[in-house]
């Protein structure tokens, strides 16, 4: 009986949230009073397995195969099914990454069990896990319990656990190699190298002040209002994804998990609800101000200063006051 953590790396470098999942695994194994294994999947993963073995783990499971050099849902699901068959874990924990969105539901469906995705918290009652998930775009939280036969599979949201709290072991954990047979036809997809679309490359990461607009701005004709505020504050203009998707601002001004990550001194969120995919890109800001007409908007959970109001009333006044003080 064990807990299994599945790590993620890209061409030999850890995905930064892998160690957060290890930290979650250590908590779970302690609460469930069982052993903890961590898996690393890929091609030539000996170095990574050795690095992982420094953590406090019962063992590291390395699944190494040339066909696993690049991620594929078929290949990685087969590798992890093998690990599940071998270890018979009660709980399998993943970091909630885009790769895991692609992989874990398939793995769970193929073993016929639950995948509790994107947990922001975890607690235990009678040795059984209860996961906390955001629902309704973060407006509510839910306690979700896996049902049915194990292994139960779950993933933890970026930032929900602290990578630094993943403890090192007294000595290196043993590394076990699991061999899998993968033929040519077993992986049905072909994947290319990652690329970025050619872009003007506005680098917002150096900006000290960012004024960011969301769907609350309503139409492209209102963007100049936010622009005026950004100018008055000497800051940069940025946006949530729907604004960039609609072409109201260029893609390179998008903040969030699929855009840029910023940590300015001041982040002013205008009409942004505060969905997690946006928040991960700006929660490191020193001071966060939110203007939103809905007092229940999740953006207020991370704001230092909150203004529950219509942005079309407040923003012109901010511009006006800034103009007077010049």
């Amino acid at each position: 009986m064990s807990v299994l953590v599945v790590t993620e790396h890209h061409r030999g470098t850890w995905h930064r949230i892998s160690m957060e999942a290890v930290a979650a695994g250590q908590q779970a194994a302690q609460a469930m009073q069982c052993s903890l294994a961590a898996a690393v999947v890929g091609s030539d993963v000996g170095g990574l397995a050795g690095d992982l073995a420094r953590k406090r783990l019962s063992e590291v499971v390395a699944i190494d195969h040339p066909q696993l050099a690049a991620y594929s849902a078929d290949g990685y699901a087969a590798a992890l099914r093998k690990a599940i068959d071998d270890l018979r874990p009660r709980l399998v924990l993943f970091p909630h990454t885009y790769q895991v969105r692609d992989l874990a539901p398939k793995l769970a469906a193929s073993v016929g069990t639950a995948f509790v995705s994107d947990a922001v918290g975890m607690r235990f009652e009678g040795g059984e896990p209860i996961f906390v998930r955001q629902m309704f775009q973060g407006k509510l939280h839910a306690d979700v319990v896996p049902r049915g036969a194990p292994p139960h599979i779950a993933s933890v949201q970026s930032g929900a656990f602290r990578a630094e709290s993943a403890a090192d072991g007294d000595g290196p954990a043993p590394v076990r190699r699991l061999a899998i047979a993968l033929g040519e036809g077993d992986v049905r997809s072909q994947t290319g190298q990652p690329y970025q679309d050619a872009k003007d490359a506005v680098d917002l990461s150096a900006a000290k002040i960012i004024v960011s607009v969301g769907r609350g701005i309503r139409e492209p004709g209102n963007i100049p209002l936010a622009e005026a505020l950004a100018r008055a504050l000497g800051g940069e203009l940025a946006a949530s994804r729907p604004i960039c998707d609609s072409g109201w601002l260029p893609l390179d001004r998008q903040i969030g998990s699929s855009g840029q990550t910023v940590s300015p001194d001041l982040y002013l969120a205008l009409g942004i609800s505060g969905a997690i995919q946006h928040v991960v890109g700006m929660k490191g800001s020193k001071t966060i101000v939110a203007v939103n007409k809905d007092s229940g908007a999740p953006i207020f959970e991370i704001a230092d200063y909150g203004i529950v109001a219509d942005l079309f009333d407040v923003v012109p006044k901010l511009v006006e006051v800034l103009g007077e003080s010049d």
Partner: protein
Amino acid sequence: MKIFVCVKQVMSRDAAVRVDGDGSWVRDDGVAFETNEPDTFALEEGLRLREKHGGEVVAVTAGPARASSTLREALAKGADRAIHIQDNRFARADTHITAAALAAAIGREPHDLILTGLQSDDAGYGQTGVILAEMLGLPHATIIMKIEASGGQFRCKRELEAGWFQTVTLPQPALLTIQSGINKVRYATLMGIKKARRKPVRRYSSADLGIDTQPRQEVQRLYQPQQGKQTEFLEGSAREVADQLLSKLRFEARVI
């Protein structure tokens, strides 16, 4: 090409979410509903592929009676027909049961491509599409931003983290989960709305489909999240609030 598009009806974005009496789901009386946003992009992508390659677009939903308005909207935009899986005992169905229901309905017909949204705006598990693919034995790719169909293959642009992308090629038949923003969705025309009334909607109950109804996960309790940070709320007229904020940013936070 036979294309199935899974569309879910969700509460509209501005609806006030209210936890119901037993604290385990939300009340859905007196609120407006709409089609889950990524699913509208999935439907548009299906319609464009049909316009290019010929074939048929079938909109599929699992949900209560009110979800028929989501199907009508899809038919008005151009879907050829619809499938409605309806069963009131399934109001709390998890992703596994929902995918099983969709698989049972779609699996009994020939299919070349199944499109879903990447995630719902309500429960937001972000997994129903991938489970459905596995149940039907199809290859899948997620968070798709472009699809090119040719020579029995789908060449797709898959979104990765932090502004990166990757090309994924899959053999037909396949399932793809669509990201918002992949295209510009069309509006239903008056003509489309008229025509939709005559398009066939096939209805199934869970008994018709004979699906496994054992839940794999359950919501125990739904509640307001706790405040992570101590937010200072500023109140007053717009002018007062503006004055307060700027003075706080200058003298308290010292960031401007």
